[in-house]
């Protein structure tokens, strides 16, 4: 209303201070939930606060979380991969087949990762080359990949893995700190940097918010999405190595149903299923929350099916409560 418009207006960088943004953030809310669950667990069960038990509990989520990191990026970019659990099965089968002809541990790792990458590339090509919706494509490949596993293995199993292969799923780096947990932590940092600190991460957000405009801004949208499918496949391969090592055997039903748990973890972590928003710290906390809830209820001998009610309620509740609160205040 004044004549300030004559000279260019000075636009401030930020509307809110970083502290204010943190205060209103999803991650903080989740962290509060996680701490609350931790306290509740330690009160409810005398067995909870025990280093070894907590260490065992981490296995409930480490492998799923590894996939969840890549899945988070994929979902932020507006795609989804429901075939991850089937990739685990196929990668594990490939490793089992390799082990049965005498391939050593390093070779098995290569086989596992390569299978994951190949599956990711297949999904990625179908989505980016043929322009198919990823949710449908990966419902298809979910059957296809596990189906191949069934064709190869039938009702058999691979169980002759080299003894040093057991390290990835059963080894400990230091005292109670398992190899899987260390890998989980390292991957969390890597994915944090990738998503929040690099150009690549920025393009992921841009694509998720508006893929057309991103393309019109010179971003190679198809290529970025393809890479994300590759990453998700790769992480499924990593998870396959850990899980296979932990189980010491492979059957085609390995990891059945994990895709929904991974997606649940990602969504609980505050990633918008519609794409464009979310963070790695959120997913990390969500992984802990899910691990703590399942382990805590397990200690109380709550049957798994009842546990899943809690997860379902939490998934909806954690999103619904802040919204209800806002509506209430209005």
């Amino acid at each position, binding site marked *: *209303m*004044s*004549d300030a*418009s*004559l000279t*260019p*207006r*000075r*636009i*401030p*960088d*930020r*509307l809110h201070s970083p502290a204010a943004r943190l205060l209103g953030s999803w991650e903080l809310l989740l962290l509060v939930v996680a701490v609350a669950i931790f306290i509740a667990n330690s009160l409810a069960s005398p067995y909870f606060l025990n280093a070894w038990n907590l260490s065992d509990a981490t296995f409930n989520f480490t492998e799923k979380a590894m996939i969840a990191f890549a899945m988070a990026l994929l979902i932020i970019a507006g795609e989804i991969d429901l075939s991850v659990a089937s990739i685990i099965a196929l990668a594990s089968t490939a490793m089992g087949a390799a082990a049965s002809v005498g391939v050593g541990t390093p070779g098995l790792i290569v086989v596992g990762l390569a299978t994951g990458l190949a599956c990711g590339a297949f999904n990625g090509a179908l989505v980016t080359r043929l322009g198919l919706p990823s949710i449908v494509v990966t419902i298809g490949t979910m059957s296809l990949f596990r189906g191949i596993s069934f064709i190869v293995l039938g009702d058999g199993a691979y169980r002759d893995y080299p003894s040093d292969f057991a390290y990835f799923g059963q080894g400990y780096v230091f005292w109670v700190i398992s190899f899987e947990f260390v890998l989980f932590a390292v991957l969390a940092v890597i994915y944090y*940097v990738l998503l929040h*600190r*690099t*150009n*690549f*991460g*920025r*393009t992921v*957000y*841009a694509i*998720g*918010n*508006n893929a*057309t*405009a*991103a*393309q*019109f*801004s*010179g*971003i*190679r949208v198809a290529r970025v999405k393809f890479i994300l499918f590759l990453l998700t496949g790769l992480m499924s391969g990593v998870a396959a190595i850990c899980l296979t090592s932990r189980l010491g055997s492979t059957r085609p039903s390995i990891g059945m149903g994990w895709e929904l748990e991974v997606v649940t973890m990602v969504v609980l972590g505050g990633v918008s299923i519609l794409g*464009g*928003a979310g963070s790695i710290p959120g997913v990390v906390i969500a992984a802990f929350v899910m691990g703590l809830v399942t382990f805590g209820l397990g200690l109380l001998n709550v049957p798994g099916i009842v546990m899943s009610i809690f997860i379902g309620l939490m998934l909806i509740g954690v999103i619904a409560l802040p919204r209800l609160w806002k509506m209430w205040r209005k």
Partner: protein
Amino acid sequence: MQLSVESRQFDSPRSDISDTPVLALRDITKTFPGVKALDGVSLELFPGQVTALIGENGAGKSTLVKTLTGIYQPDSGTIHVAGAPVTFATAQDASVAGITAIHQETVLFDELTVAENIFIGHAPRGRFGLIDWKAMRSRAAYILARIDADLDPDTPLRDLGIASKHLVAIARALSVDARVVVMDEPTAALSHKEIEELYDLVDRLKAEGRAILFISHKFDEVFRIADRYTVFRDGTHVGAGLMADVTEGDLVRLMVGRDVNQIFPERRKAPGDDVLKVVGYAHPTEFENINFTLRRGEILGFYGLVGAGRSEVMQALFGITKPSKGVTQIDGQIKVIRSPAEAVEAGIVYVPEDRGKQGAVIGLPIFQNVTLPSLTQTSRSGFLRLSEEFALAREYTERLDLRAAALDQDVGNLSGGNQQKVVIAKWLATKPRVIILDEPTKGIDIGSKAAVHAFMAELAAQGLSVIMVSSEIPEVLGMSDRVIVMREGLIAAELEGDDLTPETLVRFAAGIGESA
């Protein structure tokens, strides 16, 4: 009524208008997170009269329209229809009260037919309350005939061009027997001829005693059809009165709070060497035989009726679509451009026409939009550096006089015009060689328009080559060194110097005096 001091002089001193307002809004306030879009504004509409609502981009015009059609609910204030207070919970409520609108955005459904698009929400019902398709078709055909639109009611909307879609939107507004017809920038996507038809329509509606609210950034239009005016600035009401009492200059001053030079910037025409050469572009269905050159420091206008295929040619040049034939040369070198990324590398950038869908990445903050194509510039070995991003974003947005609360604000919260500025800033930051502006001032207010024009001139003066696709004749004439006229996917003419007149443009664009 809340008026600012300087506007009081424009208020009509006469109170001899006998008829009472059919629609009156009083002290309407509407806030969005971080923005007070409307701050205690009032507006009255009278039967048989056209009221023009004018204001800069982001002044709150569209927000007001949405408030009085039930899409938004005001935070405070009242709406009176024929003297009685009403509240609209949904668009249907407003429609029942006799208020209909052609909205700024196209609010249509690609998968439905023309007839359904016209009647959705109030389709004629037959037995058992089921939709009466026959009645709907015939009534749609009747309305379409009324506005001279040659469209089949059964065509799926997705098969129509943008101009035809706009006619459907108009037909939709007329399908309700409304006391009040709101038109939010109805002419933005229409061609010359269709605009004239729209004027006729407005005249007819007036004669039928309907009240019309007409929003436009084009003053010639406003003076052509409006009886009254209301001016908003930054969400406040700054003046209202009778058109007869004001001049264009008065309105502009009210709108922007200062004088604006509407004359196109003075330009020294000294085109340099050929920078871009397009040879033999062709596409199976969209265009054919497209040849032109662009010189250094030149502004090359592309004129044509809406739907002539100009945007398609530009998008091919920018690597979005693949032409079946043809080559692109830059500085005499053949460049293969298969994607926008390659176009940007080659120094060609494109400001699209549809900024909501193709221009701005809504959901990302302003600064991230600006730096999106320049990330390599602001980062170190692939890692982001926020301070550099803010610096780059600030440099270009402030040069374009962007109105925003902060650089980390979501672009989605900006008005259309300001979004356009963000898109232009994004490209300028890449320091391109050729910039293609597709309808750069479509829906932009007069103040910003002048800024964009001045900026274009400055860019050209700095040696950047500009292609400007525009459907506005004054703009084409005022800004271009040379103009290519397109019609039905072909280049109809290339005009320069004395050949460049409004008449020649219209003649070649419409194909008058030639055998088709």
